């Protein structure tokens, strides 16, 4: 698959502080790419390098197989985490201004904006000033300005902060639609449930170094511990419990079910198969719950960062 953006061995120093140390990422075209990491890991620096706000000390960035240059500015839409608008300028006017900075002409900026404003049902905000809007309303305008010029690459830094659940959902659907229409999305967030929901690929940066990257599914496969949640309703539950404890490594359950009288987590060794376990459980009991424990993005994040 073609990579829309390739960053090779990016390093960036600020005085004695290393913001990025030899970080490489590949962002496949058309993907939704999660850029994850704790606060201060270097995500924003990497995003700023992609946006040509700062230049890397060493390393190269390729956009669409070309060395990143000022022509690519119009192909990128960036919604920073710390974002704002001019408080004293009318919404419509400043949206046009920001679109013009991205290379759109006035006419098409205006007609595209009208479309988006209609879509979000905010047309009557056109002549309002930002000071008259709530934070969430201003965020909507910022979102529109980010995507207005139909960039190939969209970079969202915490896009859902400040939105109520309904509007967060609206924005999420718009992002998915844009992705479906061909835009590649970089998504930087601490909200792991949205990573889980949206991202196909992730990269985890910690203390200026990349510690993990790849397809989210592959990463999950690597991180799973062969642990299963089981729950049965058994006539001789104490006997079964003893048997399971002698054969397997058992743990306290991390889930809830109803109608069972034996519930636990079981970790299989590499020479033990899940079929055997199911057969054993089915022998004298009614199987109520059987599920492999797959690590969540949240667990992967915490584990990787803590073990780094």
């Amino acid at each position, binding site marked *: 698959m073609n990579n829309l953006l390739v960053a090779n061995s990016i390093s960036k120093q600020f*005085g004695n502080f290393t913001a990025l140390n030899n970080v490489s990422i590949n962002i496949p075209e058309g993907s939704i790419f999660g850029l994850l990491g704790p606060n201060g890991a270097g995500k924003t620096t990497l995003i700023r390098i992609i946006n040509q*706000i700062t230049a890397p000390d060493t390393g190269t960035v390729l956009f669409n197989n070309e060395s990143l240059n000022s022509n690519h*500015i119009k192909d990128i839409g*960036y919604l*920073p985490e*710390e*974002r704002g608008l001019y408080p004293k300028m009318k919404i419509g006017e400043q949206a046009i*201004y*920001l679109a013009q900075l991205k290379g759109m002409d006035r006419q098409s900026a205006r007609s595209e904006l009208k479309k988006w404003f209609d879509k979000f049902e905010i047309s009557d905000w056109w002549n309002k000033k930002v000071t008259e809007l709530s934070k969430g309303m201003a965020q909507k305008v910022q979102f529109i300005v980010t995507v207005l010029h139909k960039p190939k690459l969209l970079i969202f830094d915490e896009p859902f902060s400040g939105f109520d659940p309904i509007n967060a959902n609206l924005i999420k659907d718009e992002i998915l639609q844009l992705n479906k229409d061909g835009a590649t999305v970089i998504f930087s967030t601490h909200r792991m449930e949205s990573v889980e929901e949206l991202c196909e690929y992730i990269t985890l940066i910690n203390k200026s170094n990349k510690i993990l990257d790849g397809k989210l599914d592959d990463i999950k496969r690597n991180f799973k511990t062969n642990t299963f949640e089981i729950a049965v309703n058994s006539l001789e539950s104490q006997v079964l419990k003893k048997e399971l404890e002698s054969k397997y490594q058992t743990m306290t359950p991390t889930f809830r079910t109803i109608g069972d009288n034996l519930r636990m987590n079981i970790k299989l060794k590499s020479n033990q198969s899940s079929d055997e376990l199911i057969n054993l459980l089915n022998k004298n009991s009614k199987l109520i719950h059987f599920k492999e424990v797959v690590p969540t993005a949240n667990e992967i994040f915490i584990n990787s960062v803590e073990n780094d």
Partner: protein
Amino acid sequence: MGNFTLITSREYLNKITNKTFILSTLLTPLFIAGIFLLIGWLTSVNNESVKNISVVDNTGYIYEKLNSSGTIKYELLGDFSIDEAREISNAKSDYALLYINDFESPKAIADSIKFISEDATLTVINNIESQLENILTNENFKINNIDINQINKRKVYVDLSQETFEGEKTTKADGLIKLIFGFILGMMLYMFIFIYGSMIMMSVIEEKTNRIIEIVISSVKPFQSMTGKIVGVSLAGLTQFVMWGILISVFSSLFSYFFGITTTYENTELILNASEDSEISSAALGMISAFMNLPLLNIMIAFVFYFLGGYLLYSSIFAAIGAAVDNQTDAQQFLMPITIILIVALYVGMLTVPEDPNGIVAQIFSFIPLTSPVVMMMRIPHGVPLFEQILSLLILFVSVILVIWIAAKIYRIGILMYGKKPSYKELIKWLKY
């Protein structure tokens, strides 16, 4: 270039449509014209009030020779003793009472004249004294059979014709005109730098605190964003200056039309009056010729360059300060040294230029780029050698390039730095990023 124009025009339009900006554009000339009006009104009130001076003349020849000029009116009181005259004059609420005793010699008369008044001004007293002097001197000549006409005919008047070593004609008024003109130019530069420099700073702080800046510089280079801002605000400043110039004259003439008070004394009027009041008109003529004697072309060209250089130098510093801090309070620490340097420039100009425009102190300060625009503008009306001006401009513009480069570096880093106020040490560190 497209983005630069966009930023400049946004900045410009945003400034000139700002309510405070519009108000100050309209109200400042109104205020200044109002002050002119007030001054004009006060002087006219002052001039219109007639000063009645009662005269008791025991000599019989002095009163008839006293000229009641404009606001001073002499009135013969008749034959009274000094105490009676004092009471009568006081009862009439006269401006003053002039009591002249009769003696044989004019000298004795002069010694005995009494002038009684609450608060006579120096000009009135001078006027009366010179009139009495003339009258009594003439009388004295007459007594001693000296022909005044003969004396006047033979009197020799001296008005030194001055010129410089380069052969240019100068007059007494020249020095004053040069001083005033230079001071006005220096002051204008100083004001422009401060008003619009800090406006640039505020604009940068605004973009930074509203967090719009990261969106902007993901589309344009920080350097473009900074220079666009500087040019946009400067154009707004020029607009305001021009508007002030137009509005002050409009308001002044409107006021004088509606209130019938002249707020400005027309030079032509004074020239026409030359024959009537030769002292004033010759001074006015002197002023005009002194003005024409100024190296006007040199002043104009130098003003444009020093204005441009000085303004660019300071406004880039202001932009960098705006980028380095989060709010106006933090900016004070960095503004302080700038303010001090500019005030020093102003004082050096005011204190050393009148004494010696080409003295060593004035010379040194007109080579230092931070002070040269103000000091040079004060010196140039007095005449500064061309090579000195060129050298000083060269230093200024090299510094401008250097300072813009440094400011751009600080700007680039500073606009994305939030939180604590940076120290000078950190600012220097930013230059190396």
